[in-house]
Structures are given as structure tokens and as C-alpha cells.
């Protein structure tokens, strides 16, 4: 563990990871209870990435996300009540119920949206990064995308453009080993997506995406590099999603073995992080439990908010199409 990282930051990262985990576990349950309609792509297992990156960012830094976007929004400061309301399709949701899970967003937090289109994020992040440069700010734009998305033409075009213009854009590939039900080996002939970076003229870095501190450090380096005008980095984080591509089944899936799931669960980003923090005397097991409980309460409050919120009125269907 790095000496540069402060205890406060470690605790901040921990808090963000726990917030994601408990939100997602609960959202999954609510989906199973039939309360959340549509498709739910859970982030559980990948929390170290969102937390390790986002702890560097302010609301003036932008991110784009993927279909698996709740974790990114939570780590960026998203509030449970408005988020659950959105997943429920309620008028009080961040998108007034018009976006749902796949389009959840909050521009005030600099979160430019989950995206239902695989590879939808990178070009938009490039635009946001351009905007930062155009307005001579020293912020950054980070796009999160999957291993599967790295095969979309949109990623390629965005990466090339960001490198060419030396934009403050960080490409964070969350390589969880699968695009839907297709293992990485069946969708690309490479092991490290980061190997694509030299082809654009940008640094490519591989980190353990289950280790929030490793992510924190690599992201910090990439962000510094970007802020100083040196351009983008492709940061690949090796990770795993505990549940199915969509929904909450984790075990007994035909396209992966339970042993594989078990092996990755041993590297759990929160469990191991808490062990380390406890060992270092930064966060006791008791204190950790208290945090979980507090977050759990917030989740319940968020759900209560969502459940008591009204559905949007049908008369508002054609609102919000134009400014």
C-alpha cells in the first residue's frame, strides 16, 4: 500500500465501495421483487474501480459510464433516494423516470450518463475533455467501459482523437472478462486491452481492479498526466462481476464456472480492503460494521423515498424532448 495515500482517502474509498455494494445488492432484490422494471446491470465486484478513480475527481470533472452505471454515479456522489426513484421509474428520479438504469445521470455531479449503447461513452468523454481544454480548465474527463466495448469502433475513434488532441481524457477499461456471455478470449485475440494504447500514442497501464489502492494510484498518475496537458491514458483494470450480465444470478451460469466466481470472490475488493484497513489500525471491524449499517439505513431511506414517490404523469411524455 502506498505511503502517499492518507487515511482519510482510504476511508473515503472504503465508504464509496460500501455504498455501491449495498445499493446494488438492494437494487437486485428490488428487481427480483418486481419493483424495478427493465434491465438491471449490477456493478457488484467492480467497486474498487469506481471508488479508486472517483476519489480523485470533483464535480467539475466529468465521467461517462456504460450500461453498468450505478456504481459510477454513486462513487461520483449520486444520492440514493433520487437514484432508486429513477430505477423505479418515478417522477422524482434523477431523470424524472425517463431514463432508468441505463441512462441514469446527474450533470451537476459531472456524471454524463450511463449509456445503453456499448461504446457510447468514449466519444462523449472526448467531447467533454475537449470542452475542458477549450475552456482552459484543468479538469479531466474519464470514460468507463468494458472489455467488450473495446471492440467497438467508437472506442477506437475516441482514443485516437483524444491522443491526437492531447485531451485530458482517461480511458478506464473495466475488464471483467466477459462481454455479456462471451468470454474475452472469444471476443478479442489479446489478453490486455491496454496493449491497444501504443497504437494511439498513449500510455497503457494494467492494474488489479480488485485492489482499490492500485486503482487509486494508477488513476492518480493518469489524471496528473492529463491535467498537466500530456494527454490521455488507457487504464485497464482487471476485475469481475459477481452476478450475471443482467440481473442477480451469480452461480450456476452456463458460460462460467462457479469455481471461477469463487476464485474472484476471494479477491473481493471490500472484504480485502477492510482486512487491510483493520490490520493497519485505520478501520476496526466494528467501525466497518457501523458504516455498513449506516449505509444500509440510507438505502432503506432511499427505497422509502422511491416507493412513496409518484409515477410521472402521462401528460409529460413529450416534455423534455426539446429545450
Amino acid at each position: 500500500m502506498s505511503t502517499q495515500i492518507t487515511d482519510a482517502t482510504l476511508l473515503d474509498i472504503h465508504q464509496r465501495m460500501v455504498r455501491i455494494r449495498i445499493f446494488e445488492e438492494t437494487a437486485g432484490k428490488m428487481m427480483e421483487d418486481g419493483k424495478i422494471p427493465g434491465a438491471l446491470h449490477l456493478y457488484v465486484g467492480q467497486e474498487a474501480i469506481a471508488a479508486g478513480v472517483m476519489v480523485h475527481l470533483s464535480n467539475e470533472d466529468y465521467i461517462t459510464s456504460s450500461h453498468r452505471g450505478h456504481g459510477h454515479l454513486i462513487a461520483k456522489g449520486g444520492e440514493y433516494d433520487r437514484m432508486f426513484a429513477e430505477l423505479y421509474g418515478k417522477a422524482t428520479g434523477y431523470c424524472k423516470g425517463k431514463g432508468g438504469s441505463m441512462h441514469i445521470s446527474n450533470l451537476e455531479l459531472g456524471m454524463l450518463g450511463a449509456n445503453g449503447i456499448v461504446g457510447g461513452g468514449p466519444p462523449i468523454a472526448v467531447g467533454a475533455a475537449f470542452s475542458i481544454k477549450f475552456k482552459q480548465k484543468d479538469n479531466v474527463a474519464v470514460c468507463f467501459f468494458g472489455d467488450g466495448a473495446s471492440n467497438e469502433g467508437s472506442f477506437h475513434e475516441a482514443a485516437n482523437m483524444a491522443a491526437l488532441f492531447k485531451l485530458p481524457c482517461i480511458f478506464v477499461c473495466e475488464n471483467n472478462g466477459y462481454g455479456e456471455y462471451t468470454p474475452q478470449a472469444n471476443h478479442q485475440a489479446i489478453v490486455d486491452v491496454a496493449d491497444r494504447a501504443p497504437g494511439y500514442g498513449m500510455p497503457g497501464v494494467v492494474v488489479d481492479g480488485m485492489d482499490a489502492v492500485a486503482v487509486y494510484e494508477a488513476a492518480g498518475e493518469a489524471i496528473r498526466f492529463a491535467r498537466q496537458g500530456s494527454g490521455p491514458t488507457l487504464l485497464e483494470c482487471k476485475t469481475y462481476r459477481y452476478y450475471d450480465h443482467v440481473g442477480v444470478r451469480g452461480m450456476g451460469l452456463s458460460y462460467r464456472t462457479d469455481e471461477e466466481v469463487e476464485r474472484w470472490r476471494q479477491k473481493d475488493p471490500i472484504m480485502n480492503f477492510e482486512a487491510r484497513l483493520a490490520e493497519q489500525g485505520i478501520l476496526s471491524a466494528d467501525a466497518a460494521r457501523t458504516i455498513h449499517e449506516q449505509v444500509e439505513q440510507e438505502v432503506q431511506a432511499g427505497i422509502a423515498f422511491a416507493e412513496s414517490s409518484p409515477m410521472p404523469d402521462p401528460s409529460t411524455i413529450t416534455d423534455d424532448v426539446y429545450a
Partner: protein
Amino acid sequence: MAEAQPQPRELPYVAAITDGVRAVLTEQPDAFVAGEDVAGAGGVYGYYRGLLKEFGPNRIFDTPISEEAIVGLGVGAAVTGCRPIIDLMFMDFMGECMDEIANQLAKMRYMFGGRATLPVTMLTMAGAGMSLAAQHSQSLEAWICHLPGLKVVMPTTPYDAKGLIIAAARDDNPVIVILNKMSLAITGPVPEESYAIPIGEANIVREGTNYTIVALGRMVHEALKAAEVLKDLGIDAEIIDPRTLQPFDTDTVIASVKKTHRALIVHEAVRFGGFGGEITAQIQELAFDYLDAPIARVGAPFSPVPFSPALEAHYVPNADRIVAEVKQQLAL
């Protein structure tokens, strides 16, 4: 209209799709299926399930998430002698491969002076109703019906799904088969044998005397429901399912309107700029003197598809909206 149905079984639409693709792979040695998660997973809605085991990985295989290359694979393989079946998971993803569809697939034969043949069948899934929001619920047939070089079919029933897929695959032109996700569970008779529904022939799904409803895809089911309500109002609706949008069976529609003197078009797509405009324009062109009232159109309102079930329920056209539109037109 009444095709021979030697051994009718009841199958859901989703299984009829599988059956159609199976028939194609069986009868056409140069056919293969390519797309995202079609083989290992059998497709996100499961309609390729079992085919990998039956036909092996040379005949059905998963691709990277690369829609432009997937369609390009179809174009290049077709022009060199294969008969590809290309899966585009959701029709909304056409934006990712529209160049391949519009500029290569549709135009190659013409640009080459007729010296290329492109027997590509593309299956894709359209329609709203599952709270999948703005990027997974669209009906974009208007884009592709406007493209010379393509054929476009839209199966409504399980019977149609199998028969139109087989017809598409037997056709030597690119044919886009627009499936509907809310229809997957609808059941109906599906013969075991391979059979083709002629491309370009509309289906009169309900005969009627004084009102023509042209309904696209899943809207046929809604139109049938509406017809029951309308009956009580003295309206005996004739319901036409074009089944093929391109080439469009104008004759069948015109003959009906000449008999009924009134028409309504209904599609799931956004009403403004939708394919209903073309149908309307054709009817008034060719049956102007027979019309007793303006041709009505029912489609989605002018907005992206909303996520919330509370909104989506009012967004997607249905029997109630058809009835309301007819009533308004007739000032009932």
C-alpha cells in the same frame, strides 16, 4: 392468404424463430449465423438456443461487439458465395452499422451494375413495452424502407416468423427481418416443415366491409382487439398485415380501401415521419375518389421511448388508441 399448414403445432413466436433459422441452416449449406451472443448463449432472447449443438461452431458463432464489422462480415461473405444470417440484437443498434447497411449492403449490387448478389438475411428485434428505455425499444423501419436495394419484412405471428425467415434466406437479396420483443411469447400454429411466406404479399388477417386498418407487426394484434370493440359500433374492420414493407403490397391495400372507403394505419414507430406516411400517401394517390374520410395514422408520440412503465404504457400504441382514433375520425 391461407397457406397449407399440414401439421399445425402451437409454438411461441420465439420458438418459431428458432425453427425458421433451423430450417435455413438445414436446407442451405452456405448459410451461417453470426452475431453477438448467438451461439454460446443462444441469443439474448434465446431464439437461437440449441442451434450451436445441432449445427456446430462453423454454422453459428459469436462475434465481438462490433456491429459494423458484423454486417460487413455478412456483406463480404455474401458477395463471395455464402448466405449469411446476421443477427443485430436490437434494431436500435442500426446506428452503429448503418453505413454497412445503407451504403454497402443495399447498394453494392447496383453500384456494381448488377454484377453482385447479396443474399444476406438480417434478424433484428424492435419494439417497446419492456421498460428498456430510449436505446433498446425503437421501431426504425422507416429508415430501411427508404433504401433501395433492401427488402424488409415484419413477422407478426409465429407462423409468419418462421415463414418469413425462410423466405428471407431463400431470397437472393438482402432482407431485414424485424422481429418484435413483445411478441416473443405469443403462440400460434407453426408447421414442422420448411415453408416460405412469399415476400411482397400482404395478409388480410380479418376480412371486413367498411373500414380498413393497415397494421404493422405487433400492432396487428392490437388492431384485432380493436376490431372487436369497433364491431359493437357498427364498424366491420378489415385488417391488413403487410408482412412485407419493402416491396410493399400496394394492391391489396388499395383493393381493401376501395371496398371500405376508410383507412387507418397503425405502427409502433414514432408517428411523425414513420412508414405510415408512405402508406397514407399511396392510398390517397390510388384510391382518392373512394375515400370518405381522411386516412388516419396511429403511432408513437414525438419523443424517445420513456423508461418508466407509467409513461411507456401511454407511449406505445394499442387497441384503445386505435378505437379512439377511429371514433374521432367518424365523429362517433
